[in-house]
């Protein structure tokens, strides 16, 4: 494997971003695989894909990115992870975590959660995805079983987001507050930023693309809480 020049990397990132905006998944994957062949999968992820996803996250915050483009960004990341798993190589998968995610009770809007899972996995997290309509006890049981320090709960509407309170209660009732950090997300949390605290969340992110950064922060908070 060889090292890419800074200019070459920047050109690759620009090219990948353009392909993502144009929903050219196959071309995007081909470009990333070409990079991986020359420089390794780890470089393809950390030096090309992740900076592009960060840029996409910033565009999402400025509302310059459509849901379709965000979705395509997730699929490109997923395509690369699948290829890396099939081909093998140097990509470090499942080196962080594990973390548990799911849609809260009564919530079936799974697309956002699935995108969170993809972006977390691309960033090296081992993700236990519990699916839709997950009861508070199921979340906490899974966190205990897998030793997860972060639970990610997704909800789209105010009424389902309010079910996060029951999850907060369950975590605290089992004496796991602090050690188990609660990440919350979904469209309503962007619309009502104060809702995260109201329902007892420990942190939120405004898009799936920013989930890895949030989970890093919460994982560190868990370690701090346990050390204190």
């Amino acid at each position, binding site marked *: 494997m060889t090292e890419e020049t800074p200019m070459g990397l920047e050109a690759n990132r620009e090219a990948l971003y353009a392909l993502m905006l144009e*929903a050219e998944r196959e071309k995007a994957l081909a470009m990333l695989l070409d990079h991986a062949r020359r420089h390794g999968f780890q470089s393809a992820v950390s030096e090309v894909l992740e900076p592009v996803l960060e840029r996409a996250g910033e565009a999402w915050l400025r509302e310059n990115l*459509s*849901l*379709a483009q965000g*979705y395509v960004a997730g699929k490109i990341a997923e395509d690369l992870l699948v290829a890396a798993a099939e081909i093998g190589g140097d990509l470090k998968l499942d080196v962080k975590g594990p973390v548990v995610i799911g849609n809260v009770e*009564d919530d079936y809007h799974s*697309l956002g959660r699935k995108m969170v899972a993809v972006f977390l996995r691309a960033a090296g997290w081992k993700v236990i995805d519990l699916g839709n309509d997950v009861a508070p006890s199921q979340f906490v049981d899974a966190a205990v079983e897998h030793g997860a320090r972060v639970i990610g709960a997704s909800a789209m509407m*105010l*009424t389902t987001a309010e079910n996060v309170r029951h999850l907060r209660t369950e975590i605290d009732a089992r004496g796991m507050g602090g050690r188990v950090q609660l990440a919350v997300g979904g469209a309503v949390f962007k*619309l009502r930023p104060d809702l995260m605290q109201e329902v007892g969340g420990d942190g939120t992110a405004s898009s799936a693309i920013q989930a890895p950064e949030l989970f890093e922060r919460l994982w560190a908070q868990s370690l701090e809480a346990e050390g204190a």
Partner: protein
Amino acid sequence: MKDILAITCGIFQAEMAALAPRFPRLRFVHADSMLHMRPDLLQTHIDDLLAEHPSGKVLFIYGDCTPRIVELCRQPGFAKTSGINCCEIMLGREEYRRLRKAGAFFFLPEWSMRWRQVFERELGFAGGRGAGEMLREVHSHLIYLDTGVMPVPQALLQEISRELVMPVTVLPTGLNQLEQAVEAAQERLDG
């Protein structure tokens, strides 16, 4: 006497026109159903409507489409139709959940007519490319809810089914659930 302002999602405009004689106290104001895609704009629109009508009772014929609706309806003088979205309002809670769990994605008459606008302009799937793939991640089939206010657009449904690559079925719902939901909301308003 029309003493209740009924702020109604445009997705129900034809259905509520059919039901209007049963609700003589409701004064209907319709909002563009595409605001569902922009909850922040929907919120602003509702605030503007309420500023124009500062007194009197308000009934929302809406799902939980923006937190503002839900929170207002916890106050006296406001009520909404029960249901997290328009499909649940049309189907009732149990049937909606049963079908949703089975993988259904629903189309109501008004949105069926505007489906390209939803997927291409609002969600950004240029030429509809990728929309079906995204839907198929979480849904297995399409259900058109035939409320009975217009002929079932068979050709259009086949076009949607073909382009999204998902089977479509027609489920006659009539207007009973919607009528009951509005009736119950009006009772809560008076209660």
